[in-house]
């Protein structure tokens, strides 16, 4: 029934479409190099504007929404003390709800509309990975990404991106060696988040653990029922469960094990081993668990890794330093590892900003990232150099006590992403008094 006219119109549409095809392949990379980084948008005589994207709402907000609160407290502290090189830091936080589409939108907003000088601590692998290419293309410093993915360390492809966390593989290696050394001959199970966190951590663990591993089970962050996984571990007779989980799933796993009367040794990744948060989540259930399990026993004895001076390292001067800032600038928020995570991040950025000097450009900030020796607040050094943008290079191993304090059971060790050994890190860190950022 198609009229000749219809055919003609169809032909016309096709022809014009073909004409458009002169544009070339959509996936072929075009010419044009990176923007010059030797500029300084967002910088005035007395301010520097920086931005970040964080999940303040939505399903990922629990656990992460307080990082920017910690960072903000540190910036307020620094600004009250006169700023860095005479400049106040203006900290713009955009909520991306952990939705990659929104991440791209808000980051472009920060860069194009807010004219930020740098992006600091953008959170999340699925989210931040979508803006790395853009930020590098625009020459925007993309510092201290809040994720342990390996991809931030790629100086050739992404010269302006720098990691922050100890990456998942390094951490896996440290955990793997620790388990191998301290739980020789015991059966091990992995509970992993079914994304790059799980994949990269297992790569590290597997360098030391092979035949010991009797079960590997993934969990999906959208599915809070982990009873099936823990049941399988119990049936496989696993005595050590390495849990590469975010805090909520660490807590869920502890409770699921308690539910089925399964008592393995838990070994937690740093991302899910925040004692203060975990205590808040599980202590009530420990109380409920009755007589045969002493109070708070759910958490007691759990082993984890950490690389920051968390709230529980009470004899660490940095921990005290941050607690003081917290008490003054964010007293209403709980003082947790999450908070310290944001605080150390902000402090580290301030160190780089200080080192970049008064005559600030983006290139100078990037140079400062690789030349500054960031001794402290972190427990291990960063891997920053001309050919590495890797964040923290190691971690210590802690045991959580019944009262949610922690005992360091293995001092900080460092390693690399490859075949390198896991070695103790011995250098002393300076105290907060010795790192002077403000004033002239």
């Amino acid at each position: 029934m198609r009229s000749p006219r219809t055919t003609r119109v169809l032909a016309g549409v096709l022809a014009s479409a073909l004409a458009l095809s002169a544009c070339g392949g959509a996936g072929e990379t075009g010419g044009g190099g990176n923007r010059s980084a030797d500029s300084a948008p967002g910088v005035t005589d007395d301010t520097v504007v920086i931005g970040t994207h964080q999940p303040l709402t939505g399903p990922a907000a629990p656990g992460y929404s307080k990082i920017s609160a910690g960072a903000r407290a540190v910036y307020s502290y620094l600004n009250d003390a006169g700023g860095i090189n005479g400049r106040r830091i203006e900290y713009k936080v955009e909520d991306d709800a952990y939705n990659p589409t929104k991440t791209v939108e808000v980051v472009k907003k920060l860069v194009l509309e807010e004219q930020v000088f740098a992006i600091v601590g953008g959170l999340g692998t699925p989210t931040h990975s979508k803006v790395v290419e853009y930020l590098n293309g625009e020459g925007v410093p993309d510092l201290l990404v809040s994720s342990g993915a390996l991809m931030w360390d790629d100086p050739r492809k992404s010269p302006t991106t720098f990691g922050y966390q100890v990456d998942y593989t390094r951490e896996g290696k440290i955990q793997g060696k620790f388990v191998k050394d301290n739980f020789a001959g015991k059966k091990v199970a992995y509970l992993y988040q079914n994304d790059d966190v799980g994949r990269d951590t297992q790569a590290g663990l597997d360098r030391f653990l092979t035949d010991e591993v009797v079960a590997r089970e993934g969990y999906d962050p959208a599915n809070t029922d982990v009873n099936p996984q823990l049941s399988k571990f119990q049936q496989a007779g696993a005595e050590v469960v390495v849990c590469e989980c975010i805090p909520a799933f660490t807590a869920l796993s502890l409770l699921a094990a308690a539910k089925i009367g399964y008592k393995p040794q838990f070994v937690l990744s740093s991302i899910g081993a925040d004692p203060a948060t975990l205590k808040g989540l599980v202590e009530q259930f420990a109380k409920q668990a009755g007589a045969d399990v002493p109070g708070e026993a759910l958490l007691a004895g759990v082993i984890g890794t950490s690389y920051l001076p968390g709230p529980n390292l009470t004899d660490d001067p940095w921990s005290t330093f941050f607690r003081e800032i917290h008490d003054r600038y964010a007293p209403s928020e709980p003082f947790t590892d999450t908070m310290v995570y944001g605080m150390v991040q902000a402090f580290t950025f301030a160190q780089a900003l200080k080192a970049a000097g008064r005559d600030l450009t983006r290139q100078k900030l990037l140079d400062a990232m690789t030349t500054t020796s960031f001794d402290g607040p972190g427990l291990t050094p960063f891997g920053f150099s001309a050919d590495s943008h890797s964040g923290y290079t190691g971690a210590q191993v802690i045991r959580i006590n019944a009262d949610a304090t922690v005992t360091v059971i293995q001092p900080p060790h460092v390693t690399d992403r490859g075949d390198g050994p896991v070695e103790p890190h011995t250098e002393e860190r300076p105290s907060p008094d010795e790192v002077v950022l403000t004033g002239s």
Partner: protein
Amino acid sequence: MNTIWHLVLNGISSGAVYAALGLSLVIIYRATRVVNFAQPALALISAYLAYATTKATGSYWLGFAVALLAGTLLGVLVERLLIRRVSRRSELSSIIVTLGLLLVLQAVAGMIWSNEPHAFGYAFDFRGRFSATDLFAVSAVLVTAAGVLLLFKFTPLGLRMRAAAFRPEVAKMLGVRVGLMLTAGWGLAALVGSLAGMLAIPPFISPNVLDKVFVFALTAAVLGGLDNPVGTIVGGFALGIGLSCISGLVGPELVPLAALAVLVLVLAVRPSGLFGRTIARRV
């Protein structure tokens, strides 16, 4: 075999929750032909109130009572203030209004109690393959469901509620206060929904905690037939057990896909759910 048994036990208690929340949707759908997307938010707010009460007094059961009471009250208020104005309009209007309410209430919860998770206790000891808490959940849901059915079938109030829902004009002529009955229906539904929330939320409460549960509860209700309480209860338990088995045997990431597949398969054969009545063709 052992594994499957464990998975089934595990699924029964989550199924109880889907059944209860699904039942609350069905009660409202029968009464006002509205699918209440705000139901998880009503349950959320009442659970947060329970959380606050328990924290202040130390008594779980006082919090439990507050949740049920607050839930009922919220349901009544929502019907009086919002639904009454839109229920005679299109289906879409009520969907959007309840969605809007969902957003507002979740945001309010986040404003008051923050978006961070808080520990939220179980009613009884949670330990054991089929713990006291699981037993409580299942029996509470079954008792509630039975109560709702008996109320509808055998009490004058239930009769009036049904009359108001299905033949409002006739009911009005017979002296039934139709508006009051619809309000009562919402109150009852929100009560059941709050119970579901109290059972579903532990161990942690945060503003989005009931989102997934709600999707599965709606799936269960659609599976069972939206105007059929018994079908929804059966659908809820079946879905709980089925999804637990899929999570344990195939992979946890397949759970949402499996729910979709089951729904498509069932609706392809029976467009009004397993136990739903097919709407007679009007000619």
